[in-house]
């Protein structure tokens, strides 16, 4: 049932040019960053070889690439998540889902999975770009896997937050602006926090991604991402339930 909905969500996404455009733009920007990083790496390589423990291509090219991908996904998610619930409300299509034998949880999870499949495709494309290096060099598979896992979990957080905000309104644009604001807030928080021991760092999503970016899979970061995602999914379910009660 969840997959029926997720499938519909994907179909609707790809029926509009927006999804294709986002895929293309993100891919274009990442390719640009990738190539310029690769250029720098190649020009520095003669000097790097003289070091006792030279940084590899994964560390020099791919880790920064995925760091940029995280920021790009953060910008893209509001545009994708805005329509999830807000547009159903606007087009009066919610009754189809509400009168079908589905629980609110299934509706929310279905929508979430739909968006995640799209984001996974987006991340998959950037991974393919990374794997292209495999033809000419050895890759640090652990670092690569850590980055991809981190990126996926980070996107799940973005998507859950976007889905929740989309539940709050019937105007997709409002949902997009709200989500973008909230996500930027979680980002800026880290910069604004000042002292390194400030508690605010704990709530910054990209800060938690940094350890994945370095190839470190910390269970605290893992737990933070999972809890963040679950919390906003639960809030979305509650919010839709409240709609049914309040009308």
């Amino acid at each position, binding site marked *: 049932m969840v997959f029926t909905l997720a499938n519909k969500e994907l179909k*609707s996404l790809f029926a509009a040019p927006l999804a294709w455009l986002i895929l293309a733009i993100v891919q274009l920007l990442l390719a640009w960053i990738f190539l310029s990083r690769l250029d720098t790496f190649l020009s520095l390589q003669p000097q790097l070889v003289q070091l006792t423990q030279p940084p590899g291509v994964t560390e020099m090219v791919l880790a920064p690439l995925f760091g940029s991908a995280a920021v790009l996904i953060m910008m893209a998610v509001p545009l994708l998540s805005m329509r999830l619930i807000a547009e159903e409300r606007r*087009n009066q299509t919610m009754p189809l889902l509400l009168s079908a034998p589905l629980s609110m949880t299934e509706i929310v999870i279905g929508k979430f999975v739909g968006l995640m499949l799209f984001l996974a495709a987006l991340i998959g494309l950037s991974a393919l770009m990374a794997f292209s290096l495999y033809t000419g060099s050895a890759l640090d598979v652990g670092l690569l896997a850590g980055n991809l896992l981190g990126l996926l979990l980070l996107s799940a957080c973005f998507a859950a937050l976007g889905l929740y905000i989309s539940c709050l309104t019937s105007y997709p644009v409002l949902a997009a602006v709200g989500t973008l604001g909230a996500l930027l807030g979680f980002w800026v928080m880290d910069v604004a926090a000042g002292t390194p021991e400030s508690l605010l760092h704990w709530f910054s999503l990209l800060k938690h991604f940094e350890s994945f970016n370095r190839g470190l899979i910390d269970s605290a970061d893992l737990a933070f991402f999972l809890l963040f995602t679950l919390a906003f999914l639960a809030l979305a379910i509650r919010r839709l339930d409240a709609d049914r009660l309040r*009308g």
Partner: protein
Amino acid sequence: MAQEISSTTVLAHQLSRWFGARSAVLELNLELKKGEVLGFLGPNGAGKTTTMRMLTGNLAPSAGSISICGIDLLDQPKAAKQLIGYLPEDPPLYHELNVDEYLALAARLHRVAKPELKNNMEQAKQRCGLNEVSKQLIGSLSRGYQQRVGLAQAIIHNPEVVILDEPTVGLDPIQMREIRTLIRELGGAHSVILSTHILPEVESVCDRVIIMHQGKGVYSGSINALREMREGHSLQLGLRNPPQTAQLQMPGVIAVEKIADTLFTIQFNPDADPSEALVKAAAAQGWELYQINRQRANLEDVFVQLTQQE
């Protein structure tokens, strides 16, 4: 007894819904038998849509209970919703999908198993006359076809109860007639509830009617009883050469009212229709009769009549 339980498809008891301090529906009772077509009649804002949203699980009632074929909608929403097909006032259509994709989605959401999917879709398309637009995007269809897609969506899983909110609004007269015929057909195998504010529509398709006014059910009964109510017991009489009002007091006449120089309204006792006597008298005494007709109360009058009784 068991027979009786299984033949009742929708049972709502003391259903109420408040929005803040305002009550949209107040202590409404309704019962629907298998194969019956029930009409919800009422002016805009009478609470028809709110009632339907509650019956389909789109809105939680503030008080009261609803059961669908004996399954409580609030306790077991999934099992109960499985038995309902709902077409809201604005058909819930995804304009970016084509008709086939949309109907397949609706069927899957209603847990129609894969092997039956194709058959159910064919049947629904056949019934709603959608075969020639199967591959068209819903957004490109006309209003009438969109309404039919909405209807097909409501019957795709062969539900026991079909609930239609103003299904003929915005359609042209031919489409209206087609949809009504279809609703009558549905009445055979399914139970149907439809809402409307068009009285002739209720007369042509419904077995029973509930008239709602300000959230309350002010009348519930068979369509024939309503027809009698509409019939009214007054005549309009036009005489070019009118006599004194007193002369019109024939046996059976309760009251005579002069509404213009040559026009009279005559209230009469339903057991003694004075029409014939009046015509004879007019001919005999040269009143120059030019008009005599039984006044049918219009919908508004029925409402006024019913709401005043309350």
